[in-house]
């Protein structure tokens, strides 16, 4: 069983890592969520006892699940979902300013902007050349 849980966690983690390495921002967000899932499952699995839910009245003689890891995972789930929400908002924001979901394209644009900043041009030029007005019209 230990081996099986470890394998499951490793697979979730590996899938998340694979998604994070991609260039599509949305897939990166999903990758972050998967990695949090792996972490949460790991914490729950690391509970020192497993059995009935830790709610009174406790069953006589039966073992009770470790409540501490449950409380920790609850906190972790809430925080990781908040992070996912803010990541999605960031994705939309990046789309608005760069008109793409592609990490590579965004990196290139950032680099161009930085070079322009170094050469002393104002950032307003960037806004007009790469901001909304240039966005492709849909057919």
């Amino acid at each position: 069983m230990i081996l099986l849980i470890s394998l499951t966690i490793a697979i979730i983690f590996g899938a998340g890592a694979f998604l994070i390495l991609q260039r599509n921002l949305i897939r990166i967000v999903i990758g972050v969520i998967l990695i949090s899932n792996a972490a949460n499952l790991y914490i729950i699995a690391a509970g020192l006892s497993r059995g009935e839910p830790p709610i009174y009245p406790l069953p006589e003689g039966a073992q009770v699940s470790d409540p501490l890891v449950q409380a920790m995972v609850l906190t972790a789930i809430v925080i990781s979902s908040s992070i996912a929400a803010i990541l999605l908002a960031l994705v939309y924001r990046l789309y608005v300013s760069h008109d793409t979901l592609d990490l590579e394209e965004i990196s290139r644009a950032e680099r161009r902007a930085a070079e322009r900043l170094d050469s002393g041009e104002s950032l307003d030029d960037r806004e007009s050349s790469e901001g909304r007005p240039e966005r492709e019209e849909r057919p």
Partner: protein
Amino acid sequence: MTLTVLLPLALALLAAPAALLAGTLRTAYAAPVGTVFAALAALATLWGYLSGGGIVDIAWTPTWGLRFAVELDGLATLYALLATGIGFAVLVYSSRYVPLHLDHEARPASDAVRFYFFVLLFMGSMVGLAMAQDLILLFVFWDLTAIASYYLIGYDGHKEGSRASALMALLITGITAVLLLIGALFLYAAHGTFSIPELAGLVEPGPLLTGCGLLIAVAGLAKSAQAPFHFWLPRAMAAPTPVSAYLHSAAMVAAGVLLIGRVYPLLQQSEVLLDILLVFGVASMAVGGVLALTRNVLKQLLAYSTIAQYGFVVAMYGLGGPYGAGGAAFYVITHALAKSALFLTAGAVTEATGEDRLSKLGGLRKPLPLLAVASGAAAATLTSLPLTLGFFADEFFFAAALERGPLFAAFAVAFAATTLAYTWRFWSGVFLGGADGKAEAHSVPALLVAPVAALGGIALLGGIFTGPFESLAEAAGEVSFQAPTPLGASYRLEVLPEYLMALGAYALGVGLILSRPVWSWAALGFSRLGALAGPERLYVLTVHGLNVLSGSLHQLEIRNLRGRVTSVLLPTAVIVGAAVLATPATGAYQVGELRAEEVPLMMVLVGVAAASLATAFTRRHVTLALVFSSAGFALAVAYAFYGAPDVTLVAVLVEVVLALLYFATMKLIPYRTLRRQAAQPLLRPNRKIFVSAVAGIFAFVVVWGALSQPPAGQTVAEEYVRLTPEVHAEDVVTAILADFRGLDTLGEITVVAVVLLGVSTLLGRGITAAKAPSSADSVAGVATRAVARLLYLPTLIVAVAILVKGYTQTGDGFSAGVVAALGLMLRRLALGRGKTGGLPSARGAATIAFAGLLLALSVAAAPLFLGDAVLTHYPSPGSEPIYLGTLELITAVLFDVGIFFLVLGFSIGVVSVFAHTIADEEEYAGPQGYRKR
């Protein structure tokens, strides 16, 4: 007894907020309110001192040995009187000067409020600094003065020079302040107390005292602008003139020697430290004196003079003995009176002529006679002419030097002569000589002259009625020296060696003035050398280097986003790999038995793994959402098999909200972009699969190794399970969240609230814009609406049930909040916007969320007022709770109610911000969904 201490301190500390409050009502109120507070604080200090002073010593953070210990002793009275008294004069002057200054700079008159706030904050923190007896408390006030000075020096923030000067002052005094903290911590580690009087009795000469004393002394020396830290002070002249006057005489720079005077009982136990002080003092006298002789701009000349003058004070502390410690205090009084008057003179002169260079000024005694006389008195005090207060200051300096030996006596005479030379240069350059070819003067407002006259008059009177000044300086010196320091400031009809030295200094000074052409090239050369290779150059190079470093790091960051991920992951992998290799392999990994009742869990886990893997290889975005949601829901089921119903409930709810947000994001991004993105081929897929496989293998090894460890004997979880009934709970997990580990939950909900702010700021117009979207009434079909109508009321009831029964059953404030939010969304779906006003606006949701956070924080903080620790819940364990029907009334439930409202507000807020953004987008879209902007 305590009122004598607390009243001056409270008045001084309240001055800044009071002026700010008055200034927000009406700009013109700030100055009078601030001035009145300064005067009251000065009077209260005087009253407190005359009634015998007093001590207030309250345990602040007892476990760390911190105490709020303030005492109005001689030293504190001296500096508190300077801060409030000179502060009063400066404020009177400012009430006229600041409007003129703002007028010149074309700034709104309301900017004056900020000026008064920070000057008064400066005053308050100086008074606190003067009284503090605890090194940490002292450090707090010390940094407060640095903050106030930063905003004052950078008051003309639209000028780049001002900002750079402010930053320089903050960096130099702020970084050295950390040395003070380090020194304090070392002393605490060795002696177990931060209290300065206690430490004075505990320390012994040795490397520890020398090290700590040096750290603390360096902080003081940097603040007092002693060479080689002196360069920030002339730059700080970028501040408006009243600030310069205050900074030099009674605040900031004075704070440095105040610190040295305060910790002097420690410092004087080490000969080495006294010698170091002497070296710094003499170096500053030399550097400041020589450079003051070369400067053309009035305020620059005075700034270098200040460096030299505080060099006298530091040197006196270094010389030691009763004349050293008492004389230093006396010198500080004298200097404060004279220097503030001279600075205010410079400001008035510049105001009258529009000119601040000595070479362009002259002959002003005719248009400005009163100013000439008043500043003449101040200048005479500074140069220690007889019949002024300054005469005695130099007498004590000479006396202290004589005790040390003839070489020091010669030094003393030489530097006193330099003082005479540059002070003469200042005063004669401005007021004497012909007015031909010099800047013309127009009349000066009386309020710019009166403070100068008052300060000069006090300095003159002090030369005749020395009693009060002498006794104050003696009291201050006694605190530093830990023994009486009789000074004896009176004229005697006999030939004392000190008198001969003073005569020598006058003669030498006149000689210096007359021989100016002979040495001026040498002084200028020294000044050039300093600019080329001095400490300021080192500072500029360091700051520039740091800027370049940070710039190149930034470049690295934006140039290669994935490289940054690698730079985090790779070292982690190396560390983890090394740890795995270092662990003995035998017995570290166990396959574990597979029991029959675990088969369902195993099947669910297989499902989770499969769904996660599928997520990685799904291309289309909608399919992606379905697959990752199913992975999440399957995981929730796995939690259920682990005996964790609370976690399952929350995981399911979170998964629902996440799916909602995911689809909202999809909706916001045009299909075309999504499709183009989905169609893009994966670059170097083999490498990516390899990297993620390695990551997975690492995770596997670590997790397997960790899970194979046998459980420890006694666990904290068992303790929690045992204690749960005592805190009137039945669900152990909820009890942990709301009670045992409530602090974690507080942190968590704060994160949630911040995320709400972040999302609403990132999306569209932020929470301030609450315009309801005006798109079509309801997009849902008839069937959906019917189902929603059926479901929303039960959902809300379930939410309330989860909330109130959370302490005894599965569920808590968090899940109740999400359920309620989902219920409200259903209601919106069922009824449409038109009939009910729809969801609360983003701003309304944020209000709900922050009200919830406030409630939770109040419940957490309330026990403080009852003398208990944070997050103590009532009724206390074991006692009988009050019942309302079957409901128990306990504060932990109230805490949960706070979480409920926070999460409700969060969920509604985030979804509604997304919804509003979608509605906005749709408004711009044409009939077929074309984008028109």
